[in-house]
């Protein structure tokens, strides 16, 4: 009799534990989704402001064209991700010549990194900021772009934190044994270059990307 009571109690405790673990996993997934949405918003905003700067007439046409084309490629990748239901698993973004460059597992990473590199090339010109001093609207637009780039940096960091936590939670034997995650795909890290200052340049030691060092 006493044995039966012990078994019932142990099963009850186990059940509570398992449902707590499942609930935790669920909360982790929800947090992940929220962070991914925040990251998407930040990326969309950054490419929009870059496109706005490119068509503002503040810059010379060569710089504008470079920026517009990089921002446009990023926007296309963002859109195709939306069409695919936001799974982040779409095929590599089509590249006409893939010489020496590999497509990331996520077709969005390469165009976003390219946009960072284009921004870095534009803002990295010596004296760039001062060349626009006194130009109408330049300060506002550049600050907005800097802000948008900061948001991408932060949103990506926090998203990857959530990915790491979720992946760790899903690796535990209990979760794997009882398939508590259901059919949800294992979340992938979002790996892009998002620092506007190249490594080893001015701004080293600072964690936040700044446009003009």
């Amino acid at each position: 009799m006493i044995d039966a009571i012990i078994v019932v109690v142990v099963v009850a405790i186990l059940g509570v534990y398992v449902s707590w673990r499942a609930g935790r996993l669920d909360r982790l997934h929800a947090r992940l989704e929220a962070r991914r949405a925040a990251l998407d918003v930040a990326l969309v905003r950054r490419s929009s402001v870059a496109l706005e700067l490119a068509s503002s007439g503040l810059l010379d046409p060569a710089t504008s064209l470079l920026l517009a084309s990089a921002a446009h490629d990023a926007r296309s990748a963002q859109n195709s991700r939306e069409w695919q239901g936001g799974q982040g698993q779409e095929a590599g973004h089509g590249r006409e010549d893939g010489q020496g460059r590999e497509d990331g597992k996520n077709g969005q990473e390469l165009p976003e990194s390219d946009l960072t590199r284009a921004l870095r090339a534009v803002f990295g010109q010596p004296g760039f900021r001062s060349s626009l001093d006194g130009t109408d609207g330049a300060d506002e637009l550049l600050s907005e772009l800097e802000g948008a780039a900061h948001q991408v940096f932060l949103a990506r960091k926090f998203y990857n934190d959530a990915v790491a936590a979720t992946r760790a939670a899903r690796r535990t034997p209990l979760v794997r044994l009882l398939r508590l995650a259901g059919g949800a795909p294992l979340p992938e890290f979002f790996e892009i270059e998002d620092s506007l200052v190249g490594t080893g340049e001015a701004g080293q030691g600072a964690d936040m990307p700044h446009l003009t060092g």
Partner: protein
Amino acid sequence: MRVGLVCPYTWDVPGGVQEHIMNLAETLIDLGHQVSVISPADDDTPLPGYVVPAGRAVPVPYNGSVARLAFGFLSASRVKRWLKEGGFDVLHVHEPAAPSLSLLACWVADGPIVATVHTAIPRSRAMHAAEPILQSALEKISGRIAVSEAARTTLVEHFGGDAVLIPNGVPVKKFEKADPLPGWPGPGGALGFLGRMDEPRKGFTILVRAFEMLAAQRPGLRLLVAGHGDADEALARTPAELRDRIVLLGQVSDADKVRVYHSVDVFCAPNTGGESFGIVLAEAMAAGAPIVASDLDAFRQVLRRGQAGELFPTGNAAELAAAAGRLLDQPERRAALSAEASAAVRIYDWPIVARDVVRVYEAVVPAAGRVSVLPR
């Protein structure tokens, strides 16, 4: 005439556009014009006297690959200074739709501007995004030149209007005379090929199949191949005893390239398509090589419907073997083709091409005055 030429790509990196501008500049100077070229280049790069460096080009992602381009306000101010000091009668920009010096020059200059479009690029959606930016700089161009039909189509699709077709030039003088490579063509005869071996459009595999057919009956026949790329795939089926008679030189210097054309009895251009002009074919003609070429539209035109070289049905190795075999057996036919080719290539000689370019300059100059610099 004082001519300012703008090169969008780094001067000391080999490329078709750079080579075109170099040949055009030197020919114009020979014709008595005053020429200055501005090009991205490091300040310490050794440059010909007529080239002004515009500073280093920056590697930046563009159209899906990393390109080295010169852009930004510093490059723009270098172009401005060059324009002011040059006092040009005409400004001639190359590849104006690339985000580099040529586009900057169109932006800061006013007056007679001529532009040459070299590459056929499919209209991209990214270009569409930047259309207004491009438009305002490019609408100042008063004379447009395309080097090929494909480039002209691109230009018309992108910007409307029309362009004059002036093909790429060949410096005929540089190709006319050269000593054959030691031991070539040899008593058994030799076929020649120049180009990438692993690019299917160049048709190297077709030539290898044709050579196998010919070589089986002609014990001394050899094949001389210049150009980079991996030949393993094309040669995988070739029997070992024939394999020894295919000589791969790899990438050769400009001087050796000329000697290759002079080292063979029959030069083969088995391309399957994609050639807008066929610069290799024109070079072979300038060297007076007897030619067998695919019956592509561009090749038929350059070879005057077969008068200046034999044409064979594109992609057909047996027909290529038959045509090359006939030529190997008839030295007098080879001599006749060689003479025809040398005559036919004259219209692509740089002095002739440059004269056509000067006609375009003359057409835009009186209407537009001198080149001036806009305050930007």
